């Protein structure tokens, strides 16, 4: 049973906290922008193999060569959203740390409502950050293939956010405190980032790593954004969207399941 008021309250709380933490917003934008600026400029003149096009890129790839900087923009947006949304899911642990989780857990509402509220809140804040990043990139000179491509790109961003908040919830529900945080960071988050082809074309990775790349939801999010923003991708936008939406559904169900069965004290 879903208590919609509870979903709304959880969302509202997330918004208030987000708007009050301005320094956090700036910080969350600064890191990816530095990445974009320094990596983009640093590698822009180098010939990165495999840049100009993939299977679905087809004709577009043949007609123009893609600069590394343009290639990097969707990747960096994906990277930043990967971290922000996983942390949003992990914020359950902060609530546990500061005791507020108990207040949430004794409320007479179903846990599913709490999960949905958290996902709604986290998705909104992550999406805002992703859109800010995209806007800043555009202001700095990034041009998507067509402006219409922005709409489906936002859809990909939405599903990236939902997927990794779900992942964060799975971790948070199975951890007692923040001690496992660095393990998650080093052994889950960074591999997810590097396997996704956010920073370089995925096909440059050794063949034996490929199954892992295909199992990484971020791969489809970033490839999808590249398809819609640049017109250059490995898979078609529709395939990317279908796979990513599937992942997000699985993650939400898993996150809700583990949260439901976690001990509240």
């Amino acid at each position, binding site marked *: 049973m879903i*208590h919609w*008021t*509870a979903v*709304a*309250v959880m969302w509202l*709380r997330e918004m*208030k*906290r987000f708007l*009050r*933490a301005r320094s956090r917003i700036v910080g969350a934008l600064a890191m990816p922008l530095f990445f974009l600026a320094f990596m983009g400029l640093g590698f822009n003149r180098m010939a990165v193999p495999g840049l100009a096009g993939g299977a679905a890129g087809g004709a577009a790839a043949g007609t123009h060569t893609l600069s590394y900087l343009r290639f990097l923009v969707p990747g960096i947006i994906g990277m930043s959203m990967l971290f922000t949304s996983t942390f949003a899911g992990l914020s359950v642990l902060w609530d546990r740390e*500061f*005791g*507020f*989780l*108990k*207040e*949430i*857990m*004794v*409320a*007479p*509402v*179903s846990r599913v409502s709490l999960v949905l509220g958290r996902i709604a809140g986290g998705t909104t804040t992550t999406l805002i950050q992703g859109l800010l990043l995209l806007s800043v990139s555009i202001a700095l000179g990034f041009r998507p293939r067509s402006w219409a491509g922005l709409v489906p790109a936002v859809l990909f961003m939405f599903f990236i956010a939902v997927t990794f908040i779900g992942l964060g919830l799975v971790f948070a529900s199975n951890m*007692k405190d923040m001690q496992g945080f660095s393990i998650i960071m080093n052994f889950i988050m960074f591999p997810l980032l590097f396997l996704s082809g956010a920073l370089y074309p995925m096909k440059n990775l050794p063949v034996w790593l490929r199954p892992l790349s295909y199992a990484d939801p971020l791969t489809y999010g970033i490839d999808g954004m590249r398809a819609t923003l640049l017109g250059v991708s490995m898979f078609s936008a529709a395939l990317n969207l279908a796979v990513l939406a599937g992942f997000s559904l699985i993650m939400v169900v898993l996150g809700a399941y583990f949260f439901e069965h976690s*001990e*509240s*004290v």
Partner: protein
Amino acid sequence: MSAEARREEIISEQAAGVSSGDAIWVENLTRTFGDLRAVDSITFSVPSGELFGLLGPNGAGKTTTLNMLSTLLKPTSGRALVAGYDVSRHRDSVRQSIGIVFQEPALDGKLTGRENLEFHAMMYGLDRYTRRRRIEEVLALVELTDKAKVLAEKYSGGMKRRLEIARGLVHRPRVMFLDEPTLGLDTQTRRHIWDYIKKLNRETGVTIILTTHYMEEADYLCHRIAIMDQGRFVAQDTPSNLKDLLGGDVVSLEFENGAEEMLAAAQSLAWVKKAKQHDGCLSLTMERGERRIPELVSLAQGKGITVTCVNLRKPSLEDVFLHFTGRTIREQEASSAERHRGHPHGRPGRGR
């Protein structure tokens, strides 16, 4: 909750012979963590409107008991009804009927005092109008009206506690749980919180269950207390009855002369339970000593004996604890810390 579930509830209550006046009804409630029996088959009931205390050292199982009664932990075995609802089967109904103040602060520091209350009121399904009215009401009760717009993280320890008490009241619970409500507060703030708790119980009639390891707190606040030690209830009664179990007060009298004569006279009095003489001093054990002192003094005067000093010592709950467990609460805490050191998470020991 469906009508059918409610009916089933009523039937099961009748079967269990629960009187509807009981806010809490617990039978053989048990919770284990691995090998440790944190709560070991406790049985008690609390009538509506009572202020009931669980007194015991850290690690006695008080918080675990509260966590089970508030549906945060599932009982390993046994049954508990809160406001008439089974804590294992009707969690949402139980949650709707209770308010809780946890041992550690459970506020969102990034929200203001009022926002914390609003969050709570919305979670408990109050409409906008009721919300506004109740929030004003409880803020006034704990005297935080003028601090309502301040972020909770800026509150002092005492203010946080008061805000949490206010929050627990917003949805008008039938039962209020307070877990160590004055832990870590200074003496003056503690007095204040005590007054709020008393006022709350008196003015709203809410049933209050509190845990504490402060003897004077249990003594001052509670109508009835249960002394808890190593997961079990070792005694359960009103504070004064518990203290009377020890045989009553000790009245010491000092005389200029004629102590022997007074000893003989005292021993012949029916209400003197024990009489001892040492160094011209008399120690008499009796109930309600303060009422007997004038009698003793006039008895001495009738015999021409001069009383130079009178001292009345009431047994404290500390004495009661000592009587039932053979140790003081402080010793017990030291050894229970020892006992839990083997458990890496220290959960029962830290009273989470």
